[in-house]
């Protein structure tokens, strides 16, 4: 190769024709980077400042402040509410695991096409119609109070257990439908390819369809995980001593509501990181899809 600096000879010039250099990389511009953050900070301060001003200027504010934002009461209530919050988190994890598993099992049954699956498919559809059609709160009450009262031999009689079962049954119906949409979104050609290789319908589902479906539904599932994290508090109405229940007990004995604010803070502490994680997962998934699509 020669590195001569002959003048350009046009398209037919051959070896001496050189492309222009790549454009300079974008330099970091303080104004460009600062302006958006400044605008957001200012607008946050203005909006929330105005709200704070409206609230604190209310005639009853000093009384509310004493009852809801009493630092001493918060400190006093904190250990009990935190203890309850750990119960929330453990129920959340256990219930979540059950939901993810039951949901996938139901979705697989509903998606298999072999004729002898028909009765099972029908049962799943009935199940979904039933449990999606009833409010979770109502299910928790019915299960939490009703089933222990039946005194069934050999079955646990704790309200916590049956309330959690109600949560699992209700959420699984939704989760099943999410999984199923993910399964349906896998291209028909994947079934054809697997079948042509001799895989049974079950093997096709396990080895080819389900792994792709799980990837499809991950963002939607993260949403459910966040929703469940706070809905576990519904169990407080059947007497489970979770964060909300503990806060209420404190409120009932002292006539001070600051414990509720403590519980609210703890929930936010747990759900906001999960929501950020969900966003991150969704965004990464989107990037992956665009890359494939492009």
């Amino acid at each position, binding site marked *: 190769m020669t590195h001569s600096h002959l003048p350009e000879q046009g398209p037919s010039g051959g070896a001496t024709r050189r492309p222009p250099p790549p454009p300079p990389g974008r330099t970091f511009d303080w104004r460009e980077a600062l302006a958006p953050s400044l605008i957001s900070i200012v607008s946050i301060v203005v909006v929330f400042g105005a709200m704070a001003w409206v609230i604190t200027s209310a005639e009853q504010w000093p009384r509310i402040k004493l009852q809801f934002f009493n630092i001493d009461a918060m400190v006093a209530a904190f250990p009990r509410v935190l203890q309850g919050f750990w119960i929330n988190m453990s129920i959340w994890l256990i219930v979540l695991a059950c939901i993810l598993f039951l949901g996938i099992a139901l979705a697989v049954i509903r998606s298999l096409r072999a004729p002898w699956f028909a009765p099972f498919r029908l049962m799943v559809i009935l199940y979904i119609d039933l449990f999606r059609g009833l409010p979770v709160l109502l299910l928790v009450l019915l299960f939490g109070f009703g089933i222990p009262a039946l005194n069934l031999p050999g079955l646990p009689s704790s309200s916590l257990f049956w309330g959690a079962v109600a949560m699992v049954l209700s959420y699984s119906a939704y989760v099943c439908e999410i999984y199923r949409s993910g399964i349906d979104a896998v291209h028909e050609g994947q079934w054809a390819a697997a079948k042509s290789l*001799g895989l049974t319908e079950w093997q096709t589902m396990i080895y080819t369809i389900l792994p792709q479906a799980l990837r499809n539904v991950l963002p939607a599932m993260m949403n459910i995980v966040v929703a469940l994290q706070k809905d576990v508090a519904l169990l407080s109405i059947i007497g489970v001593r979770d964060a909300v229940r503990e806060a209420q007990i404190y409120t009932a004995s002292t006539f001070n509501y600051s414990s509720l604010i403590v519980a609210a803070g703890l929930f936010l502490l747990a759900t906001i990181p999960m929501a950020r994680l969900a966003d991150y997962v969704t965004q990464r998934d989107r990037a992956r899809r665009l890359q494939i699509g492009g």
Partner: protein
Amino acid sequence: MPRVQLFEVTKYFGDNLVLDQVDLSVAQHEVVCLIGASGSGKSTLLRCINRLVKADYGDICLDDVPVTDERFGKVGLHKRIGIVFQSYNLFPHLTVLDNLTLAPRKVHGKSKKEAEAQALAQLDRFGMGSFAKAYPEQLSGGQQQRVAFVRALMNKPDVLLLDEVTAALDPELVGEVLGIIKELKAQGMTMIIVTHEMGFARDVADRVCFLEGGRILEEGDPHQMFSAPQHERTRAFLDRIIEAGRL
């Protein structure tokens, strides 16, 4: 002795007649190309042969045994008949190597080691040895289709069905896939090929069948068929192809 035989195969999609009493016989080592407009039933015919689509009426035999025969079991038929699709249909969540070894391991009970050794040898043969650990989306269309060929050949099938295998490829990649088909023909593979590449069909086919409305309207020697089609419809179809600059 015919390897594949179809007797009056009929298929409806709903009320729509897609295949109308099709008879076809393919000898061992023979390469048959199915041509015809979209919707003429070519792909459905192909898929009936390996039972991806179940024919409503008629019989399909492989070596004189009906493909519905119990002797094939659930797996035997797919071991004997391979298929390659237009859109490759590789499993996107699996590496090239796992795409190739899935069926041998899970369906045919081979050990991981044995299946992988065979897969790597086949990949090398098709010039894809260095892509074993890649995922399908990291490959070009031509490379993906080559992997799909290797996957279909892993079970050493007796018959290979090709369903418009070049239709999704960029023009400059078509050649490498057509090269594979020619090589397979040279090795004596029995193939039934649905294609829109008329020039290729003329070169590689022992026999060409023109389908329209779910029937084989005309079949015969490719050179005779493309230069002097007997049927008026065949002539009209080929004229349209020539007009479009595809022959």
